[in-house]
C-alpha cells in the first residue's frame, strides 16, 4: 500500500525532527566545521607570522660591509658580537631566548668577490645561520636572513632574471585557481560528510530499532516489508542529506578563512545555477546509495555499536575513492567508469567544481546510483523478511 510507505516516512520524520538531540547531532558537524576551520585558518596564519610589529634580534659575527644596509631595516635589530660569544648565543637560541645567529667568514666581502665558480679550487665562502625551527620568531628571522642573502647573492652574480617586475605572469583567473583547489578537496569532503551524516541516522534507525526490539512490532503489522525498507531509506537519505548539507555549508563558509591561511585570500566562485543543480543531483543520488549501503550493514548488525564498527571499513574505502580525483587529470572519457559507484560521484563532483564536465557522464552516474539504490531496497526488503537476520 502506498499509504504505508507514507506512514513510515511520516513516523521517521516525526522521530528525527521531534528529537532536538538528534537534529542537533546531525547538524552540529556543520557548525563545528565552521568554527574549527575558521579557527584553523586564523591559527595557521598566526602560527607562521609572529606579531606584525615584532623586531627580530639578529646576532652577527663578522658583519660584512656589503650588508650594512640591514642595520637600516626596521624589522630587524642587528647586534654585532664577537666570535667568542657565539656559543653563548647558540645556547640562548636553543632556550628560545635569542632569535638567530649569523656567522660570516672573516673577510667575507673580499672572499666573496674573489670567488669564481669556474676557476675556484676551494669551496665558496659559507655563511652559517643558527636558528631554532620550533620557535616562530627564530624561524621568521631565519627566513628573512635567507631571503636577504639569497637575493644579495643573485644580485652580485646576475646573468638573467625570470618573471621579474610587477607584471601578472600567471594568466589563470582567480576563479580557475579557486576552482582547482576546491575541486581537489571537495569530493572527499562531501563524501565524508555525507557518510558520517548517513551513518549516525541509519544505524540508529535500523540497527537501533532492531536492538531495542521495536522493529519486530512493525513486522507483525500487515505492512509490506518493501514499504518499510523504502520508507526508511527515503527518510534516512533526507536526514543524511540535511546533515551533509549543513557540513557542506560549514565548509563553504569557512573556505575563505581556511584558504587565507594558505595564501589564497580572494577565493571567488564562478559557479552557475546549472552547476549547482547538477551537483545537487549527483549528491542526492550518492546519498541514496550511501544510505542503502549503510542500511544493509545496519540491518545485518545486532546493535548500533556493531553497525558503526562494521561500517568503518566502508568509510575508509569511500574516503580513499574520494581522493582518486587528485591523481587523475579531469574526468575519464570512457563512459563505463561512471558505472562504478562512489568513483563516478567523485569524478562528477570534481568535474562540477573544476567547471569542466559533460552531461552524459553525469546522467549515467545518477541513473547508475539510483539503480544501485533500487537494488539495495530489494536487498533490505529481503533482509527485513529474513528471520535469521531480524531475530538473532
Amino acid at each position, binding site marked *: *500500500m502506498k*499509504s*504505508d510507505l507514507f*506512514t513510515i516516512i511520516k*513516523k521517521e520524520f*516525526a*522521530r528525527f525532527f*521531534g*528529537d532536538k538531540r538528534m537534529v542537533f547531532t546531525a547538524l552540529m558537524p556543520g557548525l563545528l566545521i565552521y568554527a574549527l576551520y575558521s579557527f584553523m585558518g586564523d591559527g595557521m596564519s598566526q602560527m607562521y607570522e609572529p606579531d606584525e610589529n615584532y623586531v627580530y634580534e639578529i646576532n652577527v659575527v663578522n658583519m660584512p660591509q656589503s650588508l650594512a644596509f640591514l642595520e637600516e631595516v626596521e624589522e630587524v635589530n642587528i647586534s654585532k658580537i664577537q666570535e667568542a660569544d657565539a656559543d653563548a648565543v647558540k645556547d640562548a637560541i636553543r632556550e628560545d631566548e635569542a632569535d638567530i645567529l649569523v656567522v660570516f667568514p672573516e673577510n667575507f666581502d673580499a672572499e666573496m668577490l674573489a670567488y669564481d665558480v669556474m676557476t675556484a679550487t676551494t669551496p665558496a665562502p659559507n655563511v652559517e645561520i643558527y636558528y631554532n625551527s620550533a620557535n616562530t620568531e627564530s624561524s621568521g628571522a631565519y627566513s628573512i636572513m635567507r631571503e636577504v642573502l639569497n637575493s644579495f647573492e643573485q644580485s652580485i652574480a646576475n646573468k638573467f632574471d625570470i618573471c621579474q617586475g610587477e607584471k601578472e605572469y600567471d594568466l589563470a583567473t582567480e576563479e580557475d585557481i579557486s576552482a582547482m583547489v576546491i575541486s581537489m578537496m571537495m569530493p572527499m569532503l562531501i563524501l565524508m560528510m555525507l557518510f558520517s551524516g548517513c551513518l549516525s541516522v541509519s544505524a540508529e534507525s535500523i540497527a537501533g*530499532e532492531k536492538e*531495542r*526490539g*521495536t522493529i*519486530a*512490532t*512493525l*513486522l*507483525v*503489522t*500487515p*505492512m*509490506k516489508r518493501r514499504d518499510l525498507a523504502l520508507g526508511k531509506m527515503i527518510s534516512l537519505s533526507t536526514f543524511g542529506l540535511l546533515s551533509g548539507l549543513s557540513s557542506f555549508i560549514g565548509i563553504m563558509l569557512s573556505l575563505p578563512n581556511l584558504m587565507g591561511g594558505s595564501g589564497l585570500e580572494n577565493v571567488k566562485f564562478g559557479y552557475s545555477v546549472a552547476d549547482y543543480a547538477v551537483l545537487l543531483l549527483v549528491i542526492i543520488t550518492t546519498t541514496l546509495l550511501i544510505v542503502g549501503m549503510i542500511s544493509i550493514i545496519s540491518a545485518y548488525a545486532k546493535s548500533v555499536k556493531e553497525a558503526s564498527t562494521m561500517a568503518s571499513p566502508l568509510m575508509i574505502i569511500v574516503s580513499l575513492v574520494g581522493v582518486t580525483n587528485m591523481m587523475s587529470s579531469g574526468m575519464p572519457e570512457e563512459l563505463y567508469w561512471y558505472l562504478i559507484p562512489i568513483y563516478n560521484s567523485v569524478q562528477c563532483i570534481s568535474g562540477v567544481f573544476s567547471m569542466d564536465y559533460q552531461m552524459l557522464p553525469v546522467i549515467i552516474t545518477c541513473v547508475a546510483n539510483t539503480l544501485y539504490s533500487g537494488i539495495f531496497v530489494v536487498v533490505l526488503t529481503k533482509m527485513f523478511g529474513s*528471520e535469521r537476520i531480524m*531475530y538473532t
Partner: protein
Amino acid sequence: MEQNVIVKATGLRKTFKLSKKQQNIQKTKDKVKVAVDGLDFEAYRGEIFGILGPNGAGKTTTLRMLSTLIKPDSGDAWIDGASVVSNPEEVRGKIGFLTSELKLEDFFTPNYLFNFFSELHGVAPEVRDARKKAMFERFGIDEFAEVKVANMSTGMKQKTSLVISLVHDPDIIIFDEPTNGLDVLTARVVTDFLQELKEQGKTILLSTHIFSLVEKLCDRVGIVMDGKMVLCDSVEKLTKDRDLEDVFFEICSEMEAK
C-alpha cells in the same frame, strides 16, 4: 460450543542452527536444534486455547510461526483460512500478537503510537478515535496519552503494548506468556481483559507455564514437550478428578518411562 476451527496447525516443524558457542552451552554435538517437531492442533472460534509447557518446549517458537514472524521449516498453519506460509500479510492483518519481545519506541507517546499502528492496519480515523478513547480509559492510559513511553512505568508500558497490539480489533489474539514479568495488579488487569475479549467472541491463543492461569482462563489446553504436542483436550475434562499440575507430571513421568 460450536466446533468452528479458526486456527489449524498441521505438522509444524522448526529447527535452528546452533553455533559452536550454543553447542557448548547446551552440551550437545548436534548442529541443529529441533524447537518444534511436527505440531498439530486446532483452536475453535471464541475459545481461549492454552499452550502449556516447560521453558524450551517450543511454545514461543510455535506462536512466532503462527504470527508469521518466523517461517516453519515444514508444515503449515491456517489462521481464519489464511496460510502463514503462503499468505503471511493477510495473517498479520487478522491477528493481534503480543509478547514481551515486541517493544514500543521510547520516543513516542501512546497517542502517537496508537494512531501510527492504526494507520498501518488501515483503521479509519473515526473508528480509531472511538477505539482509542475506549481502550485508553479501560486501561487508565488516558492520563498518560501524551507521556513518552520512555517515561512510563513498566506496568503502564505493558498495558500500552497490549492496547497497541489490538488497534485493529483483531478476531484472533496470540499472547505469548501474558502475565510474565507483570506485577499482580497488572496481571489481574490482563487476565480480566482476556475474559472480556472472550466474551466479545474473540479467539485467544496463549502460551504459559503457569497451571493456574490455564485452569482459570483456558477452555482447552495443548501440552507441549520437546517440540511435540503430547496432549490436547478441554481443561474441564482434564481436571475432572485432579488438578492440571498432576496431569502434567503424570505425562512427564510417562514420557521419561518411554
